[in-house]
């Protein structure tokens, strides 16, 4: 739970010694509350204050890292229920289930390794492999884990087994890789915690329903182990949305520590479309790790897009990089259009230019991710700036004409642009992108 500056101030020495670099203890407390300073800066803080503020500064939902290196996945540390309040922090991870009885362990693991796609400048992928000890055999399990690790060395590994011997056989191959052991139940918690501790692993804690899982999580924490994710056993959409909403609320609004952990779930169905839809529920409604039975390209593409969309910062517009994009087989006589680099503007304009089937050049100008009208109003999409961009973009070397189509909403710029771009003809395009196909078709028909 976030503390106010005044609450923090009560625990400070109140000497105003300035050793922390702030004029008064109250000023320092305010900085602490705003998370712009840490208590280390105060040399005289009491042990009691450190303990109190330490506990209070822990995130209400713990962060858990699976895997190692720059491809490690961090989940948890969420702070809100609704994305319009504040950005969802750590995008959930996707895992592919591989059974140690599967004939094609390597091929499946390879699919995870090759799952990366690029969307709006971000490289996104299925991050995890969940190897399940379906056989019940320790040797087979260890063998499957080894195969998975060698085929997908960057994937985080989830070990789905409650069998101590099988886990002991598999874990050596994962030294230093921070796997997730899934997991601990009321019956085996002691063994599982010991294994997780000894192997630098995190632990999924599974029980039927929220109450049972919170009790088990509390027990595990009592054993001195906190790197936990929780699983209430919800596999149906209604159970997921209800239970995960309750868990997120309890952790964030009630300060219920025993539920302050990321959620792991499985979205399985024999129907791949239903599986994708079920996973969509989990992505939107607070799951942090979603295990899938299949990661066909088309399915992952949709889920990765949904995750990316819901986890974007609602305060910061998504941006496309400034560039003159070639749409279709644009040649030197193809029309040239200019717009701003707000991702939504870009997508819509690009989509309509593509729909027109008229090969074109689309100049996307960096306007800090603002849409056309907003960018114009903010002075970032002015005649001078557009002219400068067009001149520096190098497009003049690629086209044989000098005609620039500008968005209808900034028709007012056309005169000034002709002044700033000598020799160019400025044409005012439609105000709305959906009129672009007709506009471009007419244009090429006339030419």
């Amino acid at each position, binding site marked *: 739970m976030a503390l106010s500056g005044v609450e923090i101030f009560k625990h400070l020495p109140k000497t105003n010694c300035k050793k922390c670099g702030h004029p008064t203890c109250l000023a320092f407390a305010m900085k602490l509350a705003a998370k712009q300073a840490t208590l280390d800066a105060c040399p005289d803080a009491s042990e009691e204050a450190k303990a109190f503020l330490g506990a209070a500064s822990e995130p209400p939902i713990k962060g858990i890292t699976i895997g190692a290196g720059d491809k490690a996945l961090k989940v948890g540390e969420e702070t809100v229920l609704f*994305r319009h309040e504040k950005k969802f922090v750590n995008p959930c991870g996707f895992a592919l289930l591989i059974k140690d009885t599967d004939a094609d362990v390597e091929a499946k693991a390879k699919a995870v390794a090759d799952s990366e796609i690029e969307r709006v400048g971000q490289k996104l992928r299925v991050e995890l492999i969940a190897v399940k000890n379906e056989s019940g055999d320790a040797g087979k399990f260890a063998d499957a884990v080894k195969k998975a690790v060698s085929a997908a060395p960057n994937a985080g590994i989830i070990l789905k087994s409650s069998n101590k011997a099988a886990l002991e056989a598999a874990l050596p191959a994962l030294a230093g890789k921070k796997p997730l052991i899934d997991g601990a139940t009321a019956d085996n918690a002691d063994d599982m915690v010991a294994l997780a501790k000894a192997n630098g692993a995190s632990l999924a804690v599974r029980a039927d329903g929220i109450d049972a899982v919170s009790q088990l999580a509390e027990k595990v924490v009592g054993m001195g182990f906190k790197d936990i994710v929780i699983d209430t056993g919800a596999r149906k959409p209604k159970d997921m949305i209800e239970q995960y909403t309750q868990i997120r609320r309890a952790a964030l609004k009630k300060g219920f520590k025993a539920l302050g952990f990321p959620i792991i779930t499985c979205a399985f169905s024999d129907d791949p479309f239903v599986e994708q839809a079920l996973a969509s529920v989990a992505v939107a409604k607070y799951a942090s790790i979603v295990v899938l039975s299949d990661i066909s390209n088309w399915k992952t593409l949709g889920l990765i897009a949904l995750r990316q969309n819901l986890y974007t910062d609602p305060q910061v517009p998504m941006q496309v990089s400034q560039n003159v994009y070639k749409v279709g087989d644009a040649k030197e006589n193809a029309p040239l259009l200019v717009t701003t680099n707000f991702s939504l503007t870009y997508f819509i304009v690009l989509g309509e230019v593509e729909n027109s089937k008229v090969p074109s050049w689309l100049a996307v100008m960096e306007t800090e991710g603002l849409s056309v009208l907003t960018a114009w109003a903010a002075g970032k999409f002015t005649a001078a700036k557009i002219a400068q961009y067009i001149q520096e973009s190098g497009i003049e070397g690629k086209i044989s004409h000098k005609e620039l189509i500008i968005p209808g909403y900034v028709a007012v710029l056309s005169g000034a642009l002709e002044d700033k771009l000598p020799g160019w003809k400025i044409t005012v395009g439609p105000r709305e992108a959906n009129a672009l196909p007709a506009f471009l078709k007419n244009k090429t028909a006339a030419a």
Partner: protein
Amino acid sequence: MAFVVPKETYNGKVCEVEIGTGPRAVKIGGEAALPFLAFEGAVPNKPAIAYEVQDVPPDDWPQTLQDVYKDVSADPAKWAKHCQDELGAQMIALRLIGTHPDRQNRAAEDAAKTVKDVLAAIDVPLIILGSNNAEKDAQVLKSACDAASGRNCLIGKAQEANYKTVVASAMASGHKLIAMSDLDVNLAKQLNILITQMGFDKDKIVTDPMSSALGYGIEYTYSVMERIRAAALFQNDQTMAPPMVNDVGMYVWKVKETMAPEADQPSWGPVADRGIGWEATTAMGFLMAGSDLLIMRHPKAVDTVVTMIDGLV
């Protein structure tokens, strides 16, 4: 520490709107809780799905989608009946896209005839949509409203630029109304206020927050919807209480992911599956944000979402 279910207290509820007549009329809205949280408030009606049909053959739809309807799409009445009888459509949404000046520019009277033909062929509720050309829609929807008199249709879309004529037409023929604004909570509120100020009953409005496809701004629609719903439930803001509709298909089936063949995008998988999944996933996003009515195109995507809705209530 024992776990106590943390429940929200709601001060308002979503309006309940009935569309259609007779035994197959459909009620949407009425919920007194956030989406699918029946443990803390009544959720009397499942979200409904309408199959989209068009007054002219859907030449601009991706081939994989056109193929689904190739035997019926030349005739809107046959198409609608096919959706009702063969596909089990709960509602039909007739989009009069052929009236758009940039398309076939069909006359309002022709559109009215199409409406009559479709209504004669079905007994499930009908949503009548213009071509989204505000000026033309004002004429077309007037004729369509008259033609559908007595069938309690849902008419759309009234927008800032044309709401006066569209509202008057819907009111005169006793229809329900879709009010659409440009992806903004305050604009949605303002339009509802303007419409009710004309004497149109607020319990007959369905809000279209303006949809967007997965990967193409769905997060904006999602958050606008969550905020509209929060205003209705927590602040009991009556001007934000209408149920919400999402026009899913028209945004989904024109993005690259539903159109590009696998040959062009080998890492994306087969376009047929990809398109269905894209529409279903987009619809799922809207359901999570509070949608009460989805307008969709592909039967497999509809079936998927129906399965999910049944599993969510």
